């Protein structure tokens, strides 16, 4: 196993402050939401995809507006369409879980296949 002192000493030699600044908030976000919600969200992503592969049939959840997600799930929970797949899932979750999922999905960066290829991406970098 890697010795503890190695991990501490090595970064002292580094001067890449900007990269650290980017890295830490991402790690902190993942921890804030907790493993309970992270695991549940990953179970949603099984069907919905971590990143968009198809937006019309099963929408991706990454980067969805927080309020939009909560409202949509509330609509499903109060719906009487008992055979609808999302109504069935929404009714099985708690309101707290829905709010925490909304916060987690909103923080995820949505990769847009079109945007990735478009020349405007370069001008924004």
């Amino acid at each position, binding site marked *: 196993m890697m010795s503890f002192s190695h*991990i501490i000493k090595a*970064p002292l030699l580094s001067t890449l402050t900007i*990269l650290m600044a980017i890295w830490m908030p991402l790690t902190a976000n993942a921890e804030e939401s907790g*493993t309970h919600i992270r695991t549940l969200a990953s179970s949603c992503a099984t069907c919905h995809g*971590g990143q968009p592969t198809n937006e019309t049939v099963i929408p991706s959840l990454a980067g969805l507006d927080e309020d939009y997600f909560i409202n949509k799930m509330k609509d499903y929970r109060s719906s009487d369409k*008992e055979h609808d797949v999302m109504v069935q899932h929404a009714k099985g979750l708690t309101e707290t879980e829905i709010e925490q999922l909304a916060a987690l999905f909103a923080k995820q960066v949505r990769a847009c296949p079109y945007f990735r290829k478009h020349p405007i991406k370069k001008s924004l970098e």
Partner: protein
Amino acid sequence: MDRRHFLKGSLIGLGVVAFPSFAIAKSSSSYGHVVIIGAGFGGATAAKYLRMWSEGRVKVTLIEPRPQFISCPTSNQVFSGAMNMQGITHSYDHLRDSSGIRMIQGIASRIDSDRRTVEVNGERISYDRLIIATGIDFDYSNLPTLTPELQATVIPHAWKAGPQTALLKKQLESMPEGGVVAITIPPVPYRCPPGPYERACQIAFYLKQHKPRSKLLILDANPAITSKRPLFERAWKDLYADIIEYQPSSAIENLNVKTLSVKTTFDTHKVDVLNLIPPQTASRLALDTGLGSQGRPWCKVNYLNYESSNISGIHVLGDSVDTSLPKSAHVATSEAKVCAAAIIAELSGEAMDQQPVFANTCYSFVDDKQAMHVASVYRYDPKDRDMHAAPGGGVSAAPSLEEGLQAGIWAKNIWADVLS
């Protein structure tokens, strides 16, 4: 304060900086080594998420005999012609390379739970945690004449997708018009509850298009259709009334392998193609390792981390688990994620989730384009330490083209989740 928090705190406090990929690479073995046997839906998912969620701190070795991933979900569509073998076969390359997993092609054996070692290809590998995700095995003990050679060449189960799927497809294509196909369904529990009934739809669709005077006989050991019952009954009546004959409570009692004659509780049938789906158990490796429950050939686990109830340090995932959870791909991947998160928490000295919850969605195609689903959320109850279906779950009102499209995207997304 645990090591991880101390590390982070000290870095921030000192105002020091870190190059993230460097930190990850340097600490890649700091939490320990997890060996995973079986790279199906459960095992491959566990490998990926152990690496991702530990940010590279858990070292992962994944042992799998097959060179490529072959998906059971959507493999029934090979029989209707809506899917082909290429479409259900996927490479492990991306999973291995992008996640930094050591992948060994071979068959694991000699698990020593005291020394925490496992052997593969003559190499003895030490583990801190072992995950067994080796799925199901078949119990042919009531059918002594059905030798492994006959299983591989004449009477396929096609219940592990691969050469068996291709063999059954070929037999259906070679069968003369007017022939009889039989599917035998084992008693519950078995892998993929709606699977045999979906298969019946897919074979009947093929017969209707190409050999419409042929018959499909379904010999079910169970007293009734075990999943999506009204939906399958309706689909068979609407789409395949002249082709499908369903016989419940019809376990196989005897089999003549030369004449393909099947004797059930009530009748004897001579058929042209026999898809015999045998009774199932947890994988032989899991049972031989001593992970089976008292009197049941399945493995009891702790649902908080999927550790075996019998042997500490060994976790069991997916279809081998002794559970009321459906034996589906989505459940296997969700179990793998709960297991991965819990192992990381335990190895790093943090608390694991005490109330895991996850979803299951499973689609079945009734023809080449229309599908229907069953969906539910499953939640851990600390009172009985079991997983229970949450209120609200259910099935489709009817098969539809829209759900057929969803099923296609579901497959692409779950493959991407597991393998990329």
